[in-house]
């Protein structure tokens, strides 16, 4: 009985935090402050939103009317597609965290991830509607579709700025500066990763060739 009650409590708190995302996207400044400082958000809900975002992206490929999105299926690898989105998210969070800890940022890595994920909420919300909408309009009425697409991106961008501002307790100009800097940090990380992997392959190739040489001489 006790265990059941506890389980129920976990579920209800999860749904409360997930529902809180709807409050956040309409009241960003207030919402993101409470998200971390009042602990009204949860990582579980953040993960759910990220998964919803990935699902929206994939379903968009399959179900959007071809009038608005033409997919060259021969060129798509679904796992690579997911990985590219997730890696961008991870790189942004890590890059942002790495920079902001050096410059008085108050946010922890988990908080930055949570804030970014909550800020992504409008994207799946609007995209699912847009997928349905795209199948009932013609070419000429496409302006509405593109407006909605711009809205989903713009809204998300504003939310991310608000999230970073409240989590790190920055001013708006400092936030924008550090978001731009985060992108450079992402580039640097990608560069280092590439360098690292190419070094590893070179290193392995070196030892393999030594082994081969020894085997030939013996």
């Amino acid at each position, binding site marked *: 009985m006790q265990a059941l009650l506890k389980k129920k409590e976990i579920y209800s708190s999860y749904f409360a935090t997930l529902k809180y995302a709807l409050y956040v996207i309409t009241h960003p400044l207030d919402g993101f402050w409470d998200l971390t400082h009042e602990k009204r958000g949860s990582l579980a809900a953040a993960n759910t939103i990220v998964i919803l975002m990935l699902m929206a992206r994939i379903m968009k490929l399959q179900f959007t009317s*071809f*009038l608005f999105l*033409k997919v*060259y299926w021969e060129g798509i690898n679904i796992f690579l597609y997911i990985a590219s989105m997730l890696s961008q998210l991870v790189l942004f969070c890590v890059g942002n965290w790495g920079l902001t800890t050096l410059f008085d940022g108050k946010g922890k890595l988990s908080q930055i991830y949570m804030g970014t994920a909550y800020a992504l909420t409008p994207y799946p919300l609007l995209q699912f509607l847009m997928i349905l909408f795209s199948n*009932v309009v*013609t*070419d*000429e009425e496409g302006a509405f579709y593109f407006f909605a697409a711009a809205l989903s991106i713009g809204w998300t961008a504003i939310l991310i700025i608000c999230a970073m501002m409240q989590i790190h307790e920055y001013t708006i100009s400092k936030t924008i500066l550090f978001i731009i800097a985060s992108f450079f940090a992402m580039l640097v990380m990608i560069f280092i990763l590439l360098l690292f992997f190419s070094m590893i392959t070179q290193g392995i190739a070196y030892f393999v060739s030594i082994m081969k040489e020894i085997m030939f001489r013996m």
Partner: protein
Amino acid sequence: MKKGFKSLIMLLIAACIFFSSVTVGNADDGSEKGYTYNYDYWGDIQYSPDAYSTVGVYTSVELKLDKGFNNATGMYVHGDTVYICDTGNNRIVKLQRTNTNTFELVRIIEYINGDIDVKTLSGPTDICVPEDGYLYICDKGNNRILKLDNDLNYVMEFTKPMDATFDQSTAFLPNKLEVDGTGRVYCIADNVNKGMIKYESDGTFMGFYGASEVTYDWTDYLWKKFATKAQRLALKSFVPTEYDNLYMDSEGFIFACTTNVTEAGIDNGTDAPIRRLNLMGKDILIENGNFNVIGDIYWGDAGGYKGSSLMTDITALDNGIYFALDKVRGRIFGYDTQGNLLYAFGGNGNLAGCFKLPSAIEHIGKQLIVLDSQNASITIFNPTEYASLIYKAIEEYDAGDYDASGATWQQVKALNGNYDLAYIGIGRALMRQGKYKEAMSYFKLKWDERNYSKAFKQYRKEWVEDHMGFIVAIFILIFILPMLTRKIKAIKHKIDVAKIFQD
């Protein structure tokens, strides 16, 4: 149980063997050779059955000439008569097509009669014979355009325009010409970049025609602003392009092609290698296809051939379908009036149907004739069943016979399942018949958003009309019902709290 399973497996294997032996290869339609191809929506090459088959390659031996063609550059077809400008031998060869596959030498034009000093031709590059039977010859070496009657008597000549707009310091080198129904002459001359030279029928210079608009992008402009004088001179000046060849189609419009294009210009769409000029000299070529009318849409540098397709000649059938000849890779590109690539075929080499340096293309009916200046030969192509069906479908559609057109496109689709235009053709026929849903599926398969939208609009309208009751019901359920319940509740509440019922 086990026995039954075993026999089932045996039956399965037997069936497999049986069906594998039944699947015989398709008849050889040429699609395995990769001679004819087309681009799909994504720009991927899709090989297709051969649209044209080679009837024969005719050199001086087959045509019974005393000496071989030497750098032949021009060709003209008038009815069944073929004129070939044998430029290097200073003569024009007149052939008569006696049968689909046989040609007979009629005469060789070398000398002209009449009241004129120079009675020989010097490097004739083009000839035109309009309906009235006069011969117009570009006598390039003698700097003149000759007009002769059918017995080669001199009638008149068109010479260098004595006009301020024409640069008098350069020699007049007429290269290609066309004559319209009223005897006006359109001439492309070497080293003239102001367009074609237009003469009135009496020989007076009427000005330039069809000069291409000067195009430059703002980076060039900026660069010029800051360059020194010496640097500026070294830069390429912005001049209109020279034309290479022209063809007057059955509607009297002039098809012009130019090889003065850059790869970058072709890529970003600023260079137009093929134009269709109206009376004002404005380009009215329709480019509604997936790609611009540029020949090959991408190109490698393999095999010693570089760069984009360079269109050296063009010809248009009576139904508006036109063919451009690429001299780089020896390919022929066929387009319909909307600018869709119907098929591309050809290549460089020694095989029949390939070329060394093609210089001119003409047509008799739906047959194609290509003049190869380096191979000193003409090649005759006949349309195959595949191409004939495509023509038939297009002509039926243009004539308004949509049902027949759809049926013909079905036949084309049976021959080539990768042919986008067949699907779109079937879809358009279905749309005309009011079968919007089927039409939509055809358009969707080949990514035709414009036609899909048209069909979908009608389909949606029909759907809404058919499901009006359903839609109204939904509307009531969502909006009216809650409103009513609220109203009723409010009334009920009022009744409950009303004073008269309190007692």
